[in-house]
């Protein structure tokens, strides 16, 4: 009798729990305040700021080559791509044409980074759903990419390899062979990922029809990247506003129209195939030449506003620079993909169970320092 009333009151009453800031499945220090009715989520409120480092403010007192190092630390899983955005913004402002070789290397590095990022996402998504095997398989293959990075950039994770005007250093002589070996290897291994997780019944049950978002809602919330393309929103910056060499290579924009967690999953798996296709087209044709354009020792941007966007592994990453003609920006604004993607979590998770909130958060592939900056 007493049990009945207690359980009854819990099911009828709305109550609130905290997820995070220290929680193994929030991928960092995100705090979600979740209102529940029984097991059903009625509201999710994200609380930010647990890793707010003030990077935008810091940038105002730093020169442009120095800021490159800070962009690494935003979305650390797509460090190359973030560097690329800032370097392109500075180069466009100064109207510097970078050598062809640099464009080739940058495109290849970006795509390698995208694969590495998606591999890590695959590991952690599997772990969120309770499949620990994914963790070991994904990180095993990721190490091969990190080896390639390490040879050329000298660092595994935060490379700071691009500078305004080109690259820090030329690529390692063994770079091409290593990359080709990796592609050969990964083409064999990637179907294994599908066998392990994609076809798994538990995984299908937990993601199909969970966390739906329509195309219109996705656009209005500013969904970009694989999350946006999972709802059929064609938002690939590489395709629609090409930079570097993306207008010369042949690749497809992976689109799914269901808008649920499974669609977002499949977009990412498809993107790994497409990235490999891009790399294969470029790796044999890297032209000889300088690895950096001639730049002045002190870079000063002319007065004005500059914006550059690139396709990071999680969506559209933008850098907005307001310059007053000095060697430091007057204001630097970063448009991070994760911030907009997170904003819809209330819409996505509402009326689903709390266990699904974990799967939804995993399918968005959040990186928290990118949200808080």
């Amino acid at each position, binding site marked *: 009798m007493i049990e009945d009333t207690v359980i009854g009151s819990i099911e009828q009453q709305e109550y609130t729990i905290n997820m995070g*800031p*220290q*929680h*193994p499945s929030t991928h*960092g*220090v995100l705090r979600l305040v979740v209102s529940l009715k029984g097991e059903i989520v009625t509201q999710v409120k994200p609380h930010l*700021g*647990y*890793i*707010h*480092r*003030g990077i935008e*403010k*810091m940038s105002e*007192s*730093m020169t442009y080559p120095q800021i490159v*190092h*800070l962009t690494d*630390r935003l979305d*650390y*899983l797509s460090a190359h791509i973030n560097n690329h955005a800032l370097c392109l913004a500075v180069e466009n402002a100064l109207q510097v044409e970078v050598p062809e070789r640099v464009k080739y290397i940058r495109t290849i590095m970006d795509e390698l980074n995208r694969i590495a990022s998606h591999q*890590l996402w695959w*590991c952690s998504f599997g772990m969120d759903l309770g499949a620990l095997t994914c*963790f*070991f*398989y994904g*990180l*095993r293959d*990721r*190490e091969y990419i*990190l080896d390639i990075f390490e040879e050329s950039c000298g660092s*595994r*994770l*935060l490379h700071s390899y691009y500078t305004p005007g080109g690259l820090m250093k030329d690529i390692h002589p063994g770079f091409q062979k290593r990359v080709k070996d990796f592609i050969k290897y990964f083409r064999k291994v990637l179907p294994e990922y599908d066998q392990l997780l994609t076809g798994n019944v538990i995984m299908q049950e937990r993601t199909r029809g969970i966390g739906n978002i329509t195309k219109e809602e996705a656009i209005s919330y500013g969904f970009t990247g694989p999350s946006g393309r999972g709802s059929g929103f064609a938002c690939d910056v590489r395709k629609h506003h090409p930079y570097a060499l993306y207008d010369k290579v042949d690749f497809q924009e992976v689109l799914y129209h269901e808008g649920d967690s499974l669609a977002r999953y499949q977009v990412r798996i498809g993107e790994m195939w497409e990235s490999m296709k891009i790399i294969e087209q470029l790796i044999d044709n890297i032209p000889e030449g300088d690895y950096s354009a001639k730049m002045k020792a002190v870079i000063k941007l002319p007065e004005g506003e500059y914006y550059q966007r690139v396709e990071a592994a999680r969506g559209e990453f933008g850098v907005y620079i307001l310059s007053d003609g000095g060697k430091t920006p007057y204001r630097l604004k970063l448009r991070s993909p994760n911030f907009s993607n997170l904003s819809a979590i209330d819409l996505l998770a509402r009326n689903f169970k709390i266990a699904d909130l974990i799967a939804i958060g995993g399918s968005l592939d959040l990186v*928290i*320092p990118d949200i808080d900056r």
Partner: protein
Amino acid sequence: MGIKIKSMKKNDFRDNDTLELFKQSGGNVLITTLDEIVNWGRSNSIWPLTFATSCCGIEMMATGASRHDFARFGIEVYRASPRQADVIVVAGTIVRKMAPVLKRLYDQMSDPKYVIAMGACAVSGGPFYYNTYSVVRGVEHVIPVDVYVPGCPPRPEALLYGVMQLQRKIKSETMRLTRDRDREYAEGTIPPKFKLSKEEDHE
């Protein structure tokens, strides 16, 4: 009597003899033998807490994964609850909003507990030392630290080395004395500089 770590010779721990000096301070036969047994057990099963704030967390994951495999050294599983963890690896920047949470996590861990400060941010604030208003400049201002692992981010090998240093430190402990560090922490003399306001502490 030196401290033995299975996978590393003593010479490989360069210029760090202070730990051996602790060990030589003496004690009776029964206690030292008991110490050795207890320390052997403790040092070979250090379970870390799943706690990562930023980039270093990815390297910590890489250390636990296939190639580097943390578990070879007894750092077996990541525990999600601080009550089950022995060591907290502070991987990443700690900002002012996170500091009270970190302190609470540390307080919730059961004794004996250890802290590894991994990466430049946790050691000193790292790249965020200058010109920022929100970063705590080194995690030692919030909780006492046993081992510092520098790097931005440190390689997995560096973290493994740091963990073996911690094992060495544990092996030099004795149960006769409470660790000075723990006593000072309880008295409130450390951590030194970072003071939380009352509101922050009870957030």
